[in-house]
């Protein structure tokens, strides 16, 4: 059944009842409506119902009007449903089994990664060597064309070191720095 036609017939019957009530009360108002309210039309306008079948109000179809375009949740997700999703086994943090102590210093390290403590201590020493080299060179682009060798206290340059730049460090050779 056509919705617009149904609403129209309903409206006509209401107007008819109203007229009857007016006649009963004795007020003769044939063409003037008893109550005029300015507001959005609750019933479809009478002259529009011949034009389209399915559309009740004539207006250009906008993107936001179509109900099939924007997906929206039908119901609120309960806390139980939310919890089972958030606490699923795949979302929990996995325990790492590849942690072991470093044989050199005893701090913990991951099997495939260098020990953080040992790396830090090497970084420190190399920073000091680099500072010394910077002081020796004096300015930028001062690197010599020969190799560099680092010598510590009580170390004499060997035959291989005669055509190399020597960087002196005033401390004894650290155990991890090979000859």
């Amino acid at each position, binding site marked *: 059944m056509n919705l617009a036609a149904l609403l129209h017939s309903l409206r006509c019957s209401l107007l008819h009842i109203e007229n009857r009530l007016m006649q009963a009360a004795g007020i003769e108002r044939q063409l003037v409506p008893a109550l005029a309210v300015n507001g959005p039309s609750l019933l479809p306008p009478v002259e529009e119902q011949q034009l389209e079948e399915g559309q009740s109000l004539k207006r250009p179809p906008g993107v936001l009007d179509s109900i099939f375009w924007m997906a929206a949740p039908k119901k609120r997700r309960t806390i139980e449903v939310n919890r089972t999703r958030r606490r699923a086994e795949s979302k929990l*943090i996995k325990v790492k089994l590849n942690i072991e102590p470093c044989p050199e210093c005893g701090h913990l390290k991951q099997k495939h990664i260098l020990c953080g403590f040992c790396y830090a201590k090497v970084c420190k020493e190399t920073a000091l060597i680099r500072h010394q080299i910077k002081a020796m060179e004096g300015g930028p682009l001062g690197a010599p064309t020969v190799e560099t060798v680092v010598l510590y206290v009580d170390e004499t340059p060997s035959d291989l070191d005669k055509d190399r730049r020597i960087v002196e460090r005033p401390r004894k050779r650290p155990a991890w720095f090979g000859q």
Partner: protein
Amino acid sequence: MAATMTGCGVASIRSIFGLVHPRLATVAVGPQQLCCLHTSTTLETKNWERRNKIVYPPQLPGEPRRPAEIHHSRRQIKYSKDKMWYLAKMIRGMSIDEAVAQLQFNDKKGAKIMREVLLEAQEMAVKNHNVEYKSNLYVAESHTGKGMYLKRIRYHGRGMFGIMDKVYCHFFVKLVEGPPPITEKKTSLDQANEYVQLLKRRTVIHSL
């Protein structure tokens, strides 16, 4: 912090209170402690820290040894409680050394903070709570709570705005002395089998 009350009369009352309920034997902070009315709101109470103050009466010779319990927390951490929860769930039931190691190699922001809290708690245990070996502790409870949020405006298009929450969280941990308890791991298949067995075990009453 703790008001020390001298006088043998008050001490005897306190010992009676201690026998009745160990929680009432806490070092009194004033008349507030002795009455059980709500005198402070939820935001001001620091219940977790207060659990460290309970003093049990000396154990009798035949009683099994009561393991030391250390409650520690950190408040208003600039992190989300939901993200922190995953780390707290990971370390539940682990020994303290294992927990510290796992947190050291985790890349999350909360892991660093949690590691600090655990190390602090370990130190507290050895110093104040009469724990003999610092490695002989395990994480009995660890959970997170929502802290006090700050609210800010997040500007959207067309003059719309949303209220943004700057999240904070609390982290609570309870260390207990002793080796970590061994929980038997139940797989989902085992649980399913158990359920099926439960159904099969039922007897139908009032039937033919």
